[in-house]
């Protein structure tokens, strides 16, 4: 297995306005598993097929949005090597001791040119997906896969300034590749960058915004496009506010639905898309085909999708 260095988006810390409402949304409706509440009242979730202890952290406060996101890296040596490279790029690196974040080894943290706080860590307690590691079978017990039938946290799209600088950082320092980008047809200015550290079409993406450090959405992987439609049925049943009903992205080719949590933070569940290899040339879309790039089943651009961030 050649996948080393930065492995995946491992943790997203979301601010919510009302924890009881948020718990109903992320736990009862979406079907994530609540694994812990800490002394500060922060609530931790995992998706069923993730092995690490948690991937979503909710904190109740008076502002919606995202506190930080964190990538898991392969090992401690990777963490040390990336710290040097981040500093050489010119970003300040903060050290966070093991245990400061629950179930987690030491972390390093920096603030990206876009204004977002990013952490890297190599260790987090693993609690498994309920199947075990010897003769695990294929299917968990009834009730483990539930709600929207989410397999795992997949990626996030964040809004901010200096996204070209962010792309440079992720490709030159963290060894990501740019799988796709959306540019302005007339000026050629970069509007969205899609960055992969794996065989996924994106692990993180950044959309140009007038303000730094904004949150567009966090996305979860489902098993199939059929499951996206079944999630849409639940979203309608429980009156969860929808941003964009079931559709398919031109960019990444994922089958998608966008909806909001009770604090206005956008979520996505999606399935399908293609396998990305790092020798694939970057796919470029421009705004002359914006509708097709973003929602390829009706080719309609939604103002809310471009303008509503937390």
């Amino acid at each position, binding site marked *: 297995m050649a996948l080393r260095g930065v492995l995946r988006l491992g943790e997203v810390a979301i601010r919510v*306005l009302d924890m009881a409402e948020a718990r109903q949304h992320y736990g009862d409706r979406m079907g994530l598993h609540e694994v812990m509440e800490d002394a500060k009242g922060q609530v931790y979730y995992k998706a069923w097929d993730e092995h690490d202890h948690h991937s979503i952290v909710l904190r109740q406060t008076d502002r919606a949005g995202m506190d930080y996101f964190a990538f898991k890296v392969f090992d401690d040596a990777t963490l040390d090597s990336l710290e040097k490279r981040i500093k050489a790029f010119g970003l300040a690196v903060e050290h966070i001791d093991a245990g400061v974040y629950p179930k987690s080894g030491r972390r390093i943290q920096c603030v990206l040119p876009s204004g977002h706080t990013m952490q890297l860590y190599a260790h987090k307690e693993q609690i498994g997906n309920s199947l075990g590691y010897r003769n695990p079978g294929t299917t968990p017990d009834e009730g483990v896969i539930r709600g929207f039938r989410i397999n795992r946290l997949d990626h996030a799209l964040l809004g901010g300034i200096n996204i070209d600088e962010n792309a440079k950082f992720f490709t030159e320092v963290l060894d990501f590749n740019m799988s796709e980008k959306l540019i302005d047809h007339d000026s050629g200015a970069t509007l969205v960058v899609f960055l992969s550290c794996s065989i996924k079409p994106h692990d993180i993406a950044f959309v140009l915004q007038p303000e730094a450090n904004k949150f567009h959405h966090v996305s979860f992987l489902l098993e199939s496009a059929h499951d996206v439609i079944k999630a849409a049925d639940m979203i309608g049943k429980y009156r969860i506010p929808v941003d964009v009903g079931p559709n398919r992205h031109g960019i990444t080719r994922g089958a998608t639905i966008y909806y909001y949590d009770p604090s206005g933070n956008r979520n996505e569940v999606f399935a399908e898309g293609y396998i990305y290899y790092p020798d694939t040339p970057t796919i470029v879309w421009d705004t002359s085909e914006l509708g097709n790039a973003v929602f390829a089943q009706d080719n309609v651009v939604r103002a809310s999708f471009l*303008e509503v961030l937390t």
Partner: protein
Amino acid sequence: MRYTVTLAETGETYPCGETENLLEGMLRLGKKGIPVGCRGGGCGVCKIEVVSGNITTKVMSRDHVSEEDQAAGRVLACRAFPASDITLRVIGLMKKNVCRTKTQALAA
């Protein structure tokens, strides 16, 4: 209990129940292009100013509604509920669409 909500700029009115937020009622006016945002008090696009009348509110993001805003009746329509007849002004991103009259829409 149902109340009448009046849009100060256009004089249009709509009915709104006390358990229904002011945005839901406004949407029933059927105006095209109201950029409905997150509907959870987080994004700020549906900001209004209550000119007269009383409301109750649920929690809203301080990024969009400061304490002074709230005291002055500048709130998010998706988190505000009528407790009397209301007159309001639209001040958020949706203003241009809500305040557009049918005549202006036809002329455009």
